[in-house]
């Protein structure tokens, strides 16, 4: 209550100082209910954060494992050559005990094979022949065995391996742009961040020469490959539950091919020949013919191959047991994302299409635990469209930091081959994980 003379401001300021109006009881009830719900959400958030942290750890371990394995395969090649020689030397000693004198020519041929087993990469005329070719050209088998003398193939091979190692080492650093920490009230938010995506890639196929190969008794075994991709992603979110994403991603698809021959055919020497007149590998597969850049090895005779198999000393031979065909793409996705639950905005369904620009096309000869680039698959389109769908989990780690994890299925809408005989449409299943920063 006021009794002194005061100006209008003082009348109200002093008159209402400390004024209190009892609030209705149900207001507290509503507040309490809201707090309980928030506590539950908070516990749920802790669970998701722990899950996210575990997934990050798993992703990193898997990614490092894949990268380390790829690098190790390339770098270890020269060592394998020396170990191969010692292995064969050992086997040669064993053979002396096992094989009687009538097999001594084989021993000599083994020694010759080891010394001439590789052809330098600049021998571009080297090509591959099928089993049937070798059988028909039986007269040339001795010539095949001679290989290339007077060439320091180990040195050339090491150079080749170094080149390929440099080529194979691809790093996918997480990208984080500068961002402002000042909280903004704008309805539109923009997030930017990096993704890593270990993936398994396989394909659907039609046509190809696989059927004709089967007719000749060649069993074609094709399987998917594991790969590692990743890149930069930008997400634009309006105030609603919808958001849109784009970015630049690296992705790899492909397959591994193993051709099994009938028993009457020679063991495993289907890929390499130094004397053929073509530079195409007639390996039966559903992606396309492989154009060979450099030979893996000179071949050896039908009889010797069988003998090597019998004595089990061909396990470490550097001739290819299979071929891996890979296609590398720079992918520019356009993805729409919808939060499934308004009360739980961390779970979302994503779908969209991607433009895929071919940046790499390689074929590798595969041995037990290593691979060497030998060429590329022909008639591959430079651009294809793919579609994808995924279920994303997006967990805020801080005010401007989010962890995202999304199992995503991707399917190429058209064949990667421009040859109408090959209908090769890859698909992949990957776990896309990464960190995004809210920049606006």
């Amino acid at each position, binding site marked *: 209550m006021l009794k002194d003379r005061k100006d209008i401001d003082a009348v109200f*300021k002093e*008159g*209402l100082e400390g004024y209190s*109006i009892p*609030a209705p009881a149900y207001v507290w009830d509503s507040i309490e209910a809201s707090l309980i719900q928030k506590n539950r959400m908070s516990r749920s958030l802790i669970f998701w954060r722990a899950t996210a942290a575990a997934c990050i750890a798993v992703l990193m371990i898997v990614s490092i494992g894949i990268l380390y394995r790829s690098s190790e395969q390339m770098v270890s090649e020269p060592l394998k050559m020396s170990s191969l020689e010692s292995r064969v030397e050992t086997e040669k000693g064993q053979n002396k005990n096992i094989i009687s004198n009538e097999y001594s020519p084989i021993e000599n041929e083994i020694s010759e094979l080891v010394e001439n087993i590789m052809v330098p990469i600049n021998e571009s005329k080297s090509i591959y022949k099928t089993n049937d070719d070798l059988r028909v050209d039986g007269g040339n088998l001795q010539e095949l065995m001679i290989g290339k003398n007077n060439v320091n193939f180990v040195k050339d091979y090491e150079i080749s391996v170094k080149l390929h190692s440099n080529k194979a080492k691809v790093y996918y650093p997480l990208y984080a742009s500068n961002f402002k920490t000042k909280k903004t009230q704008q309805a539109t938010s923009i997030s930017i961040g990096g993704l890593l995506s270990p993936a398994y890639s396989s394909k659907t196929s039609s046509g190809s020469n696989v059927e004709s190969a089967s007719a000749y008794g060649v069993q074609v075994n094709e399987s998917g490959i594991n790969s590692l991709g990743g890149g930069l992603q930008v997400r634009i979110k309006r105030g609603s539950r919808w958001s849109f994403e784009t970015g630049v991603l690296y992705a790899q698809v492909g397959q591994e091919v193993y051709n099994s021959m009938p028993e009457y055919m020679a063991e495993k020497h289907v890929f390499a020949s130094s004397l053929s007149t073509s530079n195409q590998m007639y390996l039966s597969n559903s992606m396309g013919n492989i154009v060979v850049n450099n030979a893996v090895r000179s071949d050896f005779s039908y009889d010797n191959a069988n003998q090597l198999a019998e004595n089990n000393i061909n396990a470490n031979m550097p001739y290819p047991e299979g071929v891996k065909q890979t296609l590398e793409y720079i992918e520019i996705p356009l993805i729409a994302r919808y939060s499934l639950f308004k009360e739980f905005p961390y779970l979302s369904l994503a779908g969209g299409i991607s433009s895929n620009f071919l940046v790499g096309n390689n074929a590798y000869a595969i041995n037990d635990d290593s691979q060497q680039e030998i060429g590329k698959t022909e008639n591959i389109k430079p651009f294809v469209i793919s579609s994808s769908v995924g279920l994303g989990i997006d967990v805020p780690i801080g005010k401007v930091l989010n962890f995202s994890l999304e199992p995503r299925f991707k399917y190429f809408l058209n064949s990667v081959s421009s040859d109408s005989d090959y209908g090769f449409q890859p698909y992949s299943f990957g776990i896309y994980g990464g960190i995004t920063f809210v920049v606006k």
Partner: protein
Amino acid sequence: MNELIDIVKACQKGKVSAQKRMYEMFSGKMFAVCMRYCKDRTEAEDALQEGFIKVFANIDRFRFNGSFEGWVRRIMINTVIEVYRKKQPELLVDEFPLLTEECEDDTYDVVFSEQELMGMIQELPPKYKMVFNLYVLEGFSHAEIAETAGISVGTSKSNLARARQWLKKSVERRMLEKKQAVC
């Protein structure tokens, strides 16, 4: 004072009993604050609820550097202004400032109850009410009002002048009614 510190610390740990105790301590004053800004009791109750939820959600940020009541009051005011933004955005639209001559010499010696004063404030048009409350009762400067409410300093000054004129008329009218009642 120590009791309040203990309650705040308990609230920072998420104890519901402490939250209830804090609500009991401040809800009356904060409800009065909300009533001064909002158009009716229902809107004030909503603002009070939302404001306290924000208080408990952000109580970790209170570092015991200043008045806790002032900190809670500021959250309530921000909450009320958010309500303005959502429900009556036209009230915050800037307009050409109309500077009005003020007579600083007017003084009053009449006695008004708190309910009467509240009634006069609630009769103010919303945009005058907000500026008058912020400037006179909360002690904001015009620059702070401009930043908080998203209006220009000129508009703030103009609205304050109009609010004062409005209230002076209300006060004089009620004074006259009181004198007539005495006679």
